[in-house]
């Protein structure tokens, strides 16, 4: 049996973080999950006819913003903004969401498309999804370790692309 990182310790960390995100930091974003059954795609692998989403589901999160950038091209001055959203994993799982590349996050009236989903913040370095059981020499390993977060890297997308709000008239 491992010495540290039991479920009680993990729960302590989760509770502190939930309180921190919800009552102290109070940053929020909305998560849109693409509905695969209803969103159809064409030969080129694109849903030109429109996309369908589940959500929005509002989460407390930690938002790590990079600087806005204004790249220039023949089309004129454009806009880009990469942002990292850090969710408490248990909140996301409880909402029935599995963040994946291509999902949409609404933050401060801007839509961000998910590029990377990182889920490797293991408490004491152990993911409970892989408990390494049964282990006759060291039983009860499934009670140890914790996967704490979803860290989602996303980039800004033009608002009219997703058809969630009417942007062009």
């Amino acid at each position, binding site marked *: 049996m491992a010495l540290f990182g039991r479920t009680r310790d993990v729960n302590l960390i989760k509770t502190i973080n939930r309180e921190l995100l919800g009552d102290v930091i109070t940053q929020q974003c909305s998560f849109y999950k693409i509905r695969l059954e209803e969103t159809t795609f064409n030969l080129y692998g694109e849903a030109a006819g429109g996309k369908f989403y589940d959500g929005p589901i509002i989460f407390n999160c930690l938002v790590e913003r990079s600087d806005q950038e204004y790249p220039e091209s023949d*089309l004129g001055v454009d806009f880009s903004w990469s942002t990292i959203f850090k969710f408490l994993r248990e909140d996301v799982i409880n909402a029935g969401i599995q963040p994946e590349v291509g999902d949409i996050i609404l933050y401060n009236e801007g839509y961000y498309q998910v590029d990377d989903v990182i889920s490797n913040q293991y408490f004491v370095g152990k993911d409970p999804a892989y408990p390494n059981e049964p282990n006759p020499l060291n039983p009860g390993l499934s009670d140890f370790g914790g996967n704490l977060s979803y860290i989602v890297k996303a980039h800004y997308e033009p608002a009219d692309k997703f058809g969630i709000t009417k942007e062009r008239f």
Partner: protein
Amino acid sequence: MAEQGKTPIPKSQREISKGLHEPHYENQAGDPNNVTKYATSLADARTNNQVIDPGRASRISQKGNSWKPFTIGIKDLDEAIKYYFDNVINPSVIQNGDRIAVPTIYGSPERWKSVQRDGYYRDKKGKIMAPLIMYKRTNIDRNKGITNKIDANFPQNYAVFQQPYSKQNFYNSLSVLNGAKPIKTYQAIVIPDFVTFTYSCVIYTYYMEQLNQIIEAINYAADTYWGNPERFKFKAMINSYQTITELNVGQQRTVKGTFDIKLNGYIIPNVIQKDLNALKKFSSDSKIIINQETTENLTRDRGNNFIEDINTNLD
């Protein structure tokens, strides 16, 4: 004292301009802006750098003209492209269930205009929204295979248009009885400089399906005359299209189509050299009847400031 109380007459722009001219070769060739003596032949004009006498027939006042000097500038050709995209091809795509028109812009606008004025294809944060067509002139080739005006200093080739009506010479039933024919006024326009413009165009869309639609619309209009039918139309040729789909890490997926437009155009500039040298207006032959003519002193200009008194020689 006599000058007091008179209303001063301000100098015209031309008089002010002429007063500021300081020609380098005034002693040899005179002031070209203030011609007192014309060259008598083309050879003399070229040798002595003088202005050739265009003849009194060409000295027709432009006052009262109902037409402007005929000019076609580079901007007119650029506008022809935009007019044709916006009003004739009028490309549109279906996006999220709505049909939206595809705006056309000229490439690389000023930053302030791009960000602060072009809001119709940007979202709240200033991100460019697709679809969008951008075109930009990249090259101007002179087309020497067609006719030209021969010499910019002394244009020889003109296109002539008859003016349909002149109020100074209106034609009425009395004119018919008297057998008088109205004088016709012609507008002469220097043969233009023929050029081939090359435009680089980018179609920017979210989806390949939208790009297909736009390319189909543009391709249908290729190799025809583009422009405003009430202004100028020029033959636009498109040979090929390149389609690019980019999916870069941490960036938006973009679908682009690029193509070049070759526009056969012509330029008639609005420049002072053309105004000075080229014929702009002339009239048809008219009949002048002189009943009596008297003179007190007969003189003849022999050139070199020598005025010959013919009265003396007659005696």
